[in-house]
């Protein structure tokens, strides 16, 4: 076992004042630079300027559709069961299509309770729910409006974004033994 001694501070360091002075000068440099030219700070003035969020952002939920426009979800309740915040409420209805059997009559997500864990996405066997709408400002003036209903989840997102969305495959450059020809 090796005992590592704490380095003993030198006399000048233990007097503090010189090091404190250096630190003060560093922060003063920042202050003066930022007062004289406030626009070189790396700041996004948020509601006016918006950063484009990268595609893999975990945003708010959306429900996927089949080709004919009906929801892909079959109301299997897996997401509602796995949700740790118990914020998915599904009311199942009988589908006319016997191959599908069930469809969600209502599909409500209480965004006030959601913890954005993404378990619902993982649980869904049909890839019917995704969390890829790049919206992080889920805010409203009333609580009722923050319970998102089926119609909202199905339709209310930028279709362009969703259509063009192809999950980018990570390009891994490998060298050495793992490198493929």
């Amino acid at each position: 076992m090796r005992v590592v001694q704490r380095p003993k501070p030198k006399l000048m360091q233990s007097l503090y004042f010189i090091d404190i002075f250096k630190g003060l000068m560093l922060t003063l440099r920042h202050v003066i630079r930022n007062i004289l030219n406030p626009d070189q700070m790396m700041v996004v003035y948020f509601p006016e300027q918006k950063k484009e969020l990268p595609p893999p952002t975990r945003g708010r939920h959306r429900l996927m559709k089949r080709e004919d426009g009906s929801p892909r979800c079959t109301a299997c309740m897996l997401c509602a069961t796995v949700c740790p915040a118990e914020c998915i409420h599904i009311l199942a209805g009988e589908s006319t299509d016997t191959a599908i059997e069930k469809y969600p009559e209502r599909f409500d997500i209480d965004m006030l309770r959601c913890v954005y864990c993404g378990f619902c996405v993982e649980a869904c066997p049909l890839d019917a729910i995704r969390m890829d709408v790049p919206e992080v400002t889920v805010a409203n003036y009333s609580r009722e409006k923050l319970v998102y209903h089926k119609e909202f989840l199905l339709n209310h997102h930028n279709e362009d974004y969703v259509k063009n969305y192809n999950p980018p495959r990570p390009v891994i450059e490998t060298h050495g033994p793992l490198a493929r020809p």
Partner: protein
Amino acid sequence: MNSALFQFLNITIIAFVVWLIPLQFIPFLIWLERKGSAFIQDRVGPDRTDVLGFRLFGYIQNFADVVKLLMKEDVIPLQANRFYFLLAPFWSMMFSLIPLMSIPLAGSIHWINTTIHFQVVNLNVGLLFFFSITSMGILGIVLAGWASNNKFSLIGGLRSSAQMISYELSMAMSLITLLVVYQHADFQTIVHEQTGLYHFFGYTMCLPNWGFFLQPIAFLIFLVASFAETNRNPFDLPEGESELVAGYHVEYSSIKFALFFMSEYANMVVVSFLNVSLFWGGYEVPYVSTAQLIQSPRIVLLVLSGIIFIMGLLVFVVLFRHGWKQRTLYNGVKKWEPFLLGTGMAFIGLIFLILIPFWLHWNFPAWFPLALTALVQFGCLIIKVVFFCWLFVWVRWTLPRFRYDQLMNLGWKIMLPIAMLNFLVTSIFVILK
């Protein structure tokens, strides 16, 4: 004029002004703290709240805060000792407003056969008065900690009172050294002694005769102790935002919490006033004595106009550049605000530039030099105080926090012996001289 009535009026008005000074400093300091910390960390700080689109660089945020604090629910815990619980914030605030009453704001003016003082009371024990009143403020913190009937507030209160009491010792020790040097305890004399140039063993240096140059060690100890006294960052253990919930004021809400908050800032102002009056020449303008100011008001006016012109121009350039770069960001008043303010500042600067020839030929009335001198000295005092308030903010956002044992070690084992040694050496020198 009835001189008793005149003196009464004089004292009342000055007392009112002195009472207003910390109260006016508090929003300014909160703004300074927010903007200063933001700029130190390369952020912009508050810049959203506006009145009719005018944001005044985030200053309006203070008013929003006051409204918020006033409208919040004021909770008094059921088990708290109601009387002391209510008393504590007012106690803290009161004892951070009183001590300024003994600080001179400008030199006294002699006009015909009356004397106008710019000091509420010229106690011959001014320094001791100041010190005793500021140490009463600790009681507010202890009371708050105890009366909330909450273990955590009690521990917080004990921590902070232990810290403040231990640093009060070294602070007092460093100030006793000053008493030995000046041999007076009233602020008027102490400030007056700091005029002129610094004499060092018979040599005249090109430094002002400030307490700092007489007693640099005492100043450093006083400065460190004053950080600990006001519970500011390197020693802000009572609050320790990143470690504790809060300190003694966990149970306080609404305007009572705001009173504690404000008394902390008022304490900063008070300590800065003390610091400036003792070590940095108080209201004295460096290198220029009161008599010289009174004799040559024209030069004073010229220098003031020049400074205002240059400042106006600088603000104009900075604001225009800022406004131009941000022109696509906002609409309406928010877009034009930097241009408006910049133009206003440039306009004021230009007016003072144009006035310069006018000053040279103006036959001013006899009272004018006196009033101008008082104004200049008051402005000088305020500038020095603002600098030391900025130092508080600056240090807070530069240094990390001390651990509790380091704090106590520093206070008892390093600063107190150094202060005592300093006292001893100074006394020997003073006796030998």
